């Protein structure tokens, strides 16, 4: 009995202090909250969101376009690519995205690469939400049009569009294999989206007046 009591006391102290350390002294709680709980796990639900890739001007959470996006948009089209560490669909789409930008892999947690499509710069910003700063994490919510029903991988293409007499930054967001059955088909949709974004950029970028537009 006494032996068991000692074991109980030792184990309770060990587990409680370890949990206390992880809870108070590390960012594990925030990590679980901001990624595992808040970003819908598409593998868990065995589903993919159906999205129609259409451009819009109003952001998903009505926040302005982030500065790092506008900065890159001044040089060309921007493709934001979000993933998390543990994401099966991301693992399948990563090589597709990499091949579009002539990269061998996308293993970095944060990567900015520029490539040219039809004479226009297209900047890929690859963001692993598990390892980036709050500013980049917040940008996910800016373009996550499905809110709680969104997930990763998420792609947002940002270009310029024409809205009631004004040129504004416009974006289109898609998820998973972009509504297709295989990553290869998803790659084709992504390529078409980039080409459409490039065409819109060519048509509109000269009419863009930065001071008029941050949202």
């Amino acid at each position, binding site marked *: *009995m*006494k032996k*068991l*009591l000692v*074991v*109980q006391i030792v*184990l*309770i102290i*060990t*587990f*409680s202090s*370890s*949990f206390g350390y*992880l809870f108070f002294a*590390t960012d*594990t*709680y*925030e*990590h*679980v*909250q*901001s*990624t*595992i*709980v*808040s970003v*819908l*796990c*598409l*593998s*868990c*639900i*065995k*589903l*993919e*969101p*159906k999205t129609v890739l259409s451009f819009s001007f109003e952001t998903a959470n009505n926040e302005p376009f982030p500065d790092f996006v506008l900065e890159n948009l001044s040089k060309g089209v921007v493709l934001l690519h979000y993933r*998390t*560490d*543990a994401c*099966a*669909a991301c*693992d399948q789409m990563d090589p597709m995205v990499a091949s579009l930008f002539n990269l061998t892999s996308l293993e970095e947690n944060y990567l900015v690469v520029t490539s040219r499509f039809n004479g226009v710069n297209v900047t890929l910003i690859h963001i692993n939400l598990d390892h980036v700063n709050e500013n980049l994490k917040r940008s996910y919510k800016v373009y996550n049009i*499905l809110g*709680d*029903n969104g997930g990763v991988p998420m792609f947002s293409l940002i270009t310029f569009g024409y809205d009631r007499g004004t040129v504004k930054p416009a974006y289109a967001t898609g998820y*998973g294999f972009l*509504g297709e*059955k295989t990553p290869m088909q998803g790659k084709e949709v992504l390529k078409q989206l980039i080409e459409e974004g490039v065409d819109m950029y060519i048509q509109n970028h000269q009419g863009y007046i930065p001071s008029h537009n941050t949202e």
Partner: protein
Amino acid sequence: MRLQIKRLLSQTFFLILANLGAFKIKTGFCYPFFYCHGCPAASAGCPLGTIEHAVYKGKLDWNLLLYPLVFFGVIGMVFGRAICGWACPIGLLQRITYPISQRKTIKKISQRFAPSILPYARYIKYVNLVLLVFLTTYFIGFMFTDICPVGFLTGTIPILILNFGEFTPNQFFLVALIIFVFFIILIILSGRGWCKYFCPLGALLAPFNKVSLLHIDIETDKCLHCNLCSDACPMGIDVPNMNRSPECILCGKCIDVCPQKIIKFKVGS
């Protein structure tokens, strides 16, 4: 208040707690029971999902791995597998299906099809935990998450209902659907079949029954050997001889039926 009513209230309370995400309450805790963070109303992370994130494809995130494990250590040391009996929403579901599994016709069917290895089938849950949750995720990638019937029940189905036509099945949907159908058949044919044979979280909590503060205490010297307690046990335990059985979910059904009132909850060693 009768013990089983208290247990029902406790299970209902934890079901509500698990779904506080419906009121935009999303915490960074892990559930101490089986529930999917893919559920539209989820308020915490699935402990198995968190473990899978921690070990995914050889990336060992020790903090993330230990976070659910030590949490279960604390919970397990205090309550043992009482979590399965008093808090788990899947336990509540099986509580609802349990009376069906006890009907004569269903019992006949389950006895007819029960394999001879059934007494050993309880070890499957440990294999599930080690093989599907840890090893496969570490070496290959998600496996359990892709086919998890609890994820299908608490994540897939509510999302499909709440967002009709807005989602499309992925490549694992069909396999997960088949496993889900087997899961439903299992819990109808075998009372607490999921807890007994397959639940990886049950496997994680089970060893703590041996050392937990809360446990079932039996004054065996006063036992009449009427076997009413064992008959009532949804986990199929030989109650008078269980001696802190890893299978016991501390539901208290044996306490309720004991004519001698010699079975009690006890806190301590």
